[in-house]
């Protein structure tokens, strides 16, 4: 019994991080129909920013989240202006998606190698006074950093939900998602909406990066494995479904923690691919979509 609560606790905590990792990817995919392959590299980059803030100025990683958020938002605006907005001239959505994949694929090459030169290929993590400590709650042990991660993931998901469903900006985003041309005819500035949602998406990658650098570790080439998780979570939630991302992240986390116990730690991520293929075979629209 104690074992089971521990597995659930571990699954929920890792799953919340997985949900957070996938949010930015899902936002860009849902709103603009661009697939950002470099999402993992953005996560690692923000992890390095938080790492530097801690090492150089001694700013606690969790307090540095607003700073990282602002920096990554600016990087996101730049990213949109330089690489994605030229693609909007293309007529077909399929060609846009293919080219966005190729461009961000090249971006991985640029970002990963730049990061390896600046921060060396060593594995880094932000070690604070409370790293490694844990508390007992409801009969299971939670690490402090894991609990913070869970809290921040849920908080971010709620903020994003409010932003998308209750504000005027959110209305613009949803309008542009459904039909960019019609939205533009109704007076929505589609380009600005895209610009800001891209900034928000990269800022979300920034939050995920801070959580990862505190409770896991980062290295310059680690972005790809985070991208894999983000893709699986996004497909599970359904393409463009923002509200299902955190729940499906937690589902992936739970499946992973169960598979650690049953098939061993070396194969735990193979479970992700098996879920992925089953989802594609039987429910390609995702678990949480109502279907079209």
């Amino acid at each position, binding site marked *: 019994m104690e074992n089971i609560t521990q597995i659930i606790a571990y699954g929920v905590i890792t799953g919340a991080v997985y949900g957070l990792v996938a949010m930015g990817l899902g936002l860009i995919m849902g709103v603009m129909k661009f697939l950002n392959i470099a999402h993992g590299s953005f996560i690692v980059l923000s992890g390095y920013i938080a790492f530097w803030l801690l090492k150089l100025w001694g700013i606690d990683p969790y307090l540095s989240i607003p700073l990282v958020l602002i920096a990554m938002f600016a990087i996101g605006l730049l990213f949109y202006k330089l690489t994605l907005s030229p693609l909007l001239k293309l007529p077909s959505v399929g060609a846009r998606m293919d080219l966005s994949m190729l461009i961000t694929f*090249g971006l991985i090459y*640029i970002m990963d190698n730049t990061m390896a030169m600046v921060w060396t290929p060593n594995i880094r993590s932000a070690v604070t006074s409370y790293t490694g400590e844990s508390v007992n709650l409801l009969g299971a042990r939670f690490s402090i950093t894991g609990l913070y991660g869970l809290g921040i993931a849920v908080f971010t998901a709620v903020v994003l939900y409010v932003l998308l469903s209750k504000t005027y900006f959110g209305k613009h985003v949803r309008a542009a998602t459904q039909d960019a041309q019609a939205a533009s005819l109704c007076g929505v500035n589609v380009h600005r909406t895209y610009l800001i949602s891209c900034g928000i998406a990269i800022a979300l990658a920034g939050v995920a990066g801070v959580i990862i650098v505190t409770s896991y570790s980062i290295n310059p080439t680690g972005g790809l*494995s985070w991208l894999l998780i983000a893709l699986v979570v996004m497909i599970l939630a359904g393409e463009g479904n923002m509200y299902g991302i955190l729940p499906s992240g937690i589902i992936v986390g739970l499946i992973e923690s169960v598979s650690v116990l049953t098939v061993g730690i070396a194969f735990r991520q193979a479970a992700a691919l098996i879920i*992925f293929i089953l989802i594609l075979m039987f429910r390609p629209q995702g678990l949480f979509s109502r279907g079209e």
Partner: protein
Amino acid sequence: MEINWKKLTLFGVLVAAFLIAPLVIELGSNVMNLLVMLFILIILSQSWNMIGGYAGQINLGLAAFFGCGVLITHFVWKAGMPIFLASIAGGLAAAVLAGIIGLPTLRLKGAYFAIGTFALAEVCRIITAGAFTSIEMPGSYASSFSLVSRFYFGLSVAVIAIAVVHIIVNSKLGFGILAIRDDEQAAQVMGVNIFKHKIIALLVSAFLAGMAGGVHAFLRLSFFDITTVFNPVWTFEPLMAVIIGGAGTLIGPVIGSVFLVILSEIFALTLGQAHLIVFGFMFVLVVMYFRNGLVGSIDQIRQLVTRIN
């Protein structure tokens, strides 16, 4: 099928030059190694070209098929089969792996195929890292090692790869594949079975990637870290070679591969790791502004010149 004698002669002369070169001049093991790696890159980029350039499906997991080819070839060869049959076994295994991911994802529109192949490569890497650490051939293979045989094997597989892609693209099947890339809906209206054509393109592509893996397994007898054969580099480099050379042309991937290998030899000495950043920038710029690659740019310049004349 109309045969272009001029191009065929040029191709023949090039192949003959490569055939004779090791017999006439002493190339040295560095150059030989580089040439075999060039052949592997040409096979891989021709493979990516088949699915990405001609069929228009972006494959982000070529490393999965390559690595599968390396592993299967290695074990079949070790079991006593001749290398040619072993590498065909590697190619077939890669095609089976491609079928597993292609059957569900190629039915769907959107980025599912790219995501699926990417996930496949990452998971192959994780599983092999858990299953074995290092594999090596027995000593008798190492004592009879000769680079010349690797050279000829790589050359022959590269020629086969180019020929296979050429024959397929110029057949009725290939016209169907091209039609799907250009306009899926129109192709369907004309009675092209979209799913069948995409699957065939994928299987051929994966088979070639597996054969490239066979050449790699033949060249490197032992692997201290087997996960390196699933490294995303094996996807990145062929993709880069195809896009920079010109996707959807027969000669583009070959030019792109030669270009990349020569540039990386020059830059790696002068710039160190920064040369990869230069490649990344070059790739992004080509995708954004010269979508037809080097071959397309040459055609554009030629058109400009004739217009001026």
